[in-house]
């Protein structure tokens, strides 16, 4: 591999530039102490020296220019004129550009498409020294424990010698008439010594192994945390962007942030950085009004662009808001007209329709194209980033009050606080943010209502379900009157009380999504590794609540007749997938592996609906539906065709033969699917 001469310089220079930029912004806001200017000078000096070492004379000269501008204000940082701050920031940008342009060695150079520069910056994770120290101390401690384990080897050797001696004494040649009594006494003494030695050894080995195990567990947790970055890593560049945009447009705006301590996989931050820069820039360019206009509207002259970061279940929500004028809906209409959308369609669009249009891309509300706004690429970038990470973009706006854009992306790897619980021998984690209360209750606290089992908690009736039933691991063993440990889980869709066998306590866990090619579950947000390296489930509050409601409804319906659906598909996988979805929704399911078998089953049983695959060997799904329609006993039973064929002709043929619905596999949506079924069997 070709050596990269700038590998460490890149890392150091980026860190120095970030600290310099943040310091200058603090200085400009007047938020700096007397120690800041000497610190900035030290940073500039370090950068100059580092650039010289790698023979980057231009960067070194730029750093020198920084020192020249800043030195006269060493004692009086507050006196640094505005234009000098601009000049220093400009120089920082120049250095940043040069650092980014430093050539990678040929073998390390990324293959096309080239990795964007911003993402490159996140390939190196900067670790907190304290965290690194803790890791190193942990490793040292593990070594100490292993040495303690090794001390046991000496005792083991002695034990072996004693065992040999014992064996020798038991050999027949020692069993002469006179020696018997003496030998018995000696053997007894040796055996006692051996027993004592082994007991001590066992105790030491167990204790040392436990300590090593505990230490290694903590080490792994610490190491996993190290690869996560706090979101605040992004804030300096966002603050700088707001400042520059406001300066360019002659507005007054400040950047505020919340949730910087949330730690995320560097990969997410890398993809989002560009999008967030655009969103805060948009906030200034499209939102914040000129000072006079704000004054007239009774707002503070200085506008605010705020980025909040928060975790919600398996998603991380970035919300970018401004207190500006809100989206100009008429401008969206005009832009849509310019794009050539039919006028009638545009006229019918309400506020949310127009905002959706804005999100769809290629439309800008700015009538003039400037350096900062007007090409409609801001939201496009945010939408692309959201799509790339499998997330969603949302926009809401209120005229005169401001705009809120939220970007929700699923977490890849993240650390979070969770409550660990045990139910039916299975340990699972529930995010602490979804836990409202924990309760101790008896069977008498569970009331049977018309809706099923419920618990009265703080004057509200909340559905109750044992976690083991939600996880489908209920061994149906009756709990009799044993008390329950219960958790009141709060989600966006309400609350539920979940009964568990034990509360194991709160823990910070590093969780990851379920691996590729796994079955998906609405209840499971992801997995985390326990001390033995085995994955355990991390549940999702909304999923738990949905399932508790279903369990409650299923309880209530238990006596009522269950609706039967016949699934006809030649693929075992599809049959089983559909069966599991339908059974979870409370339906009874019959299965057939071919259309011919399906016809027989349909005539023999009483089904409320047929779910039919189109492509099957022998009779296909179209023919099956045709035959059903021709059969007086079956003609009124609705049928849904499921297929990977999505041409208009196939769709039409489905209708022609008399299928009520036609579901294309690639567009399969579980909720819609169940909705169709419920409508048809109602």
């Amino acid at each position, binding site marked *: 591999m070709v050596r990269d001469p700038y590998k460490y310089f890149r890392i150091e220079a980026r860190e120095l530039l970030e600290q310099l930029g943040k310091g200058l912004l603090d200085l400009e806001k007047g938020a700096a102490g007397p120690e800041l200017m000497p610190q900035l000078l030290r940073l500039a000096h370090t950068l100059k020296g580092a650039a010289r070492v790698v023979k980057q004379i231009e960067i070194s000269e730029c750093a020198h220019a920084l020192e020249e501008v800043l030195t006269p204000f060493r004692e009086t940082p507050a006196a640094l004129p505005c234009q000098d701050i601009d000049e220093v920031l400009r120089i920082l940008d120049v250095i940043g550009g040069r650092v980014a342009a430093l050539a990678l060695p040929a073998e390390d150079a990324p293959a096309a498409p080239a990795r964007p520069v911003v993402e490159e910056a996140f390939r190196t994770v900067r670790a907190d020294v304290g965290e690194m120290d803790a890791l190193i101390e942990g490793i040292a401690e593990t070594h100490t424990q292993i040495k303690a384990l090794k001390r046991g080897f000496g005792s083991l050797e002695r034990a072996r010698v004693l065992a040999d001696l014992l064996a020798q004494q038991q050999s027949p040649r020692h069993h002469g008439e006179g020696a018997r009594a003496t030998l018995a006494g000696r053997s007894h003494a040796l055996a006692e010594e051996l027993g004592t030695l082994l007991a001590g050894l066992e105790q030491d080995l167990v204790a040392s192994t436990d300590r090593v195990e505990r230490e290694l567990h903590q080490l*792994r947790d610490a190491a996993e945390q190290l690869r996560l970055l706090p979101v605040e890593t992004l804030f300096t560049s966002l603050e700088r962007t707001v400042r520059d945009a406001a300066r360019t447009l002659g507005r007054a705006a400040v950047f505020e942030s919340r949730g910087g301590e949330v730690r995320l996989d560097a990969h997410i931050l890398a993809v989002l950085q560009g999008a967030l820069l655009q969103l805060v820039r948009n906030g200034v360019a499209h939102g914040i009004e000129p000072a006079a206009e704000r004054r007239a509207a009774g707002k503070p002259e200085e506008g605010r662009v705020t980025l909040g970061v928060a975790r919600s279940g398996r998603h991380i929500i970035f919300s970018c808001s401004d207190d500006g004028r809100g989206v100009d809906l008429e401008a969206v209409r005009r832009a849509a007209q310019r794009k050539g959308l039919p006028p009638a369609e545009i006229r019918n669009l309400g506020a949310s329709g127009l905002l959706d249009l804005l999100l769809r891309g290629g439309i800008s509300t700015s009538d003039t194209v400037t350096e900062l706004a007007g090409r409609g690429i801001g939201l496009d970038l945010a939408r692309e980033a959201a799509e790339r990470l*499998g997330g969603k973009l949302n926009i809401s706006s209120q005229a005169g009050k401001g705009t809120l854009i939220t970007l929700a992306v*699923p977490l890849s790897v993240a650390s979070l606080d969770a409550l660990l619980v045990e139910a039916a021998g*299975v340990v699972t984690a529930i995010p602490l943010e979804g836990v409202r209360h924990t309760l101790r209750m008896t069977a008498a606290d569970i009331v049977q209502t018309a809706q099923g089992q419920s618990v009265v908690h703080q004057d509200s009736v909340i559905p109750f379900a044992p976690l083991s039933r*939600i*996880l*489908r*691991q209920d061994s149906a063993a009756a709990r009799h009157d044993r008390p329950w440990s219960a958790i009141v889980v709060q989600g966006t869709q309400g609350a539920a009380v979940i009964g568990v066998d034990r509360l194991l306590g709160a823990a910070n866990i590093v969780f*990851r999504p*379920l*691996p*590729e*090619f*796994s*079955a*998906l*579950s*609405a*209840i*499971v947000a992801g*997995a985390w*590794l326990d001390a*033995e*390296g*085995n*994955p*355990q*489930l991390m549940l999702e509050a909304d999923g738990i609540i949905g*399932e508790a409601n279903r369990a409650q409804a299923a309880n209530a319906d238990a006596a009522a007749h269950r609706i039967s659906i016949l699934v006809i598909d030649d693929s*075992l*996988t*599809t049959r*089983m*997938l559909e*069966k*599991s*979805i339908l059974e*979870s929704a409370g339906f009874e399911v019959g299965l057939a592996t071919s259309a011919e078998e399906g016809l027989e089953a349909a005539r023999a049983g009483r089904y409320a609906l047929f779910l039919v695959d189109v492509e099957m060997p022998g009779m296909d799904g179209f023919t099956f539906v045709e035959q059903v329609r021709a059969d007086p006993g079956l003609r009124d039973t609705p049928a849904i065709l499921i297929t990977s064929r999505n041409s208009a002709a196939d769709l039409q043929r489905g209708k022609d033969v008399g299928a009520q619905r036609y579901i294309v*596999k*690639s*567009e*399969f*949506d*579980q*909720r819609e699917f169940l909705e169709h079924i419920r409508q048809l069997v109602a």
Partner: protein
Amino acid sequence: MSGAEAGLGRTASELKRAFDQSFAELPGTGEQQVRDFLAIRVGADGYAIDLAEVAGLFADKPVTRLPNAAPEFLGIAGFRGIVIPVYDLRVLLGYPAKEMPRWLVTAAAMPVAFAFDVFHRHLRISTQAVAKPEGADFTHQHVRQVLRAPDIARPIVDMASILTAIKNQAQYGAARKGQ
């Protein structure tokens, strides 16, 4: 140098030459072409898995089940810090699933593991013993070849076909993501 030392020296050089020679020769030179298989039991029947398609063999690995999963999906398991889905080879080959099987193989081509009942042994078989199934032989969609030697007859699990089915199912289920 004494006579005894000289003799020892000769023996050492002969051993060294033989050792080097064993590395210089191409493996299998002059012998017939062979393939390696794992002989396993799935349900009540013996099967073979091509060793080249296997990344690892594990016993008694804990598997964490997922609620509401299809019967062929057993759950997830951890392999050196990586979480991998585990599928039930019994269900995929049309056998009824009972308790969690003891053995697992991880696939070489993608991060998926397969569980089965019993691992019998390693088989090294001439490539000529690998044949197409005949007549009423094994007609399962995931069996396209059989091992047929004088003392052994086993269907070969078609790992590629199973992996394709799993990939297709993942695509089918992808639309459910995010719900």
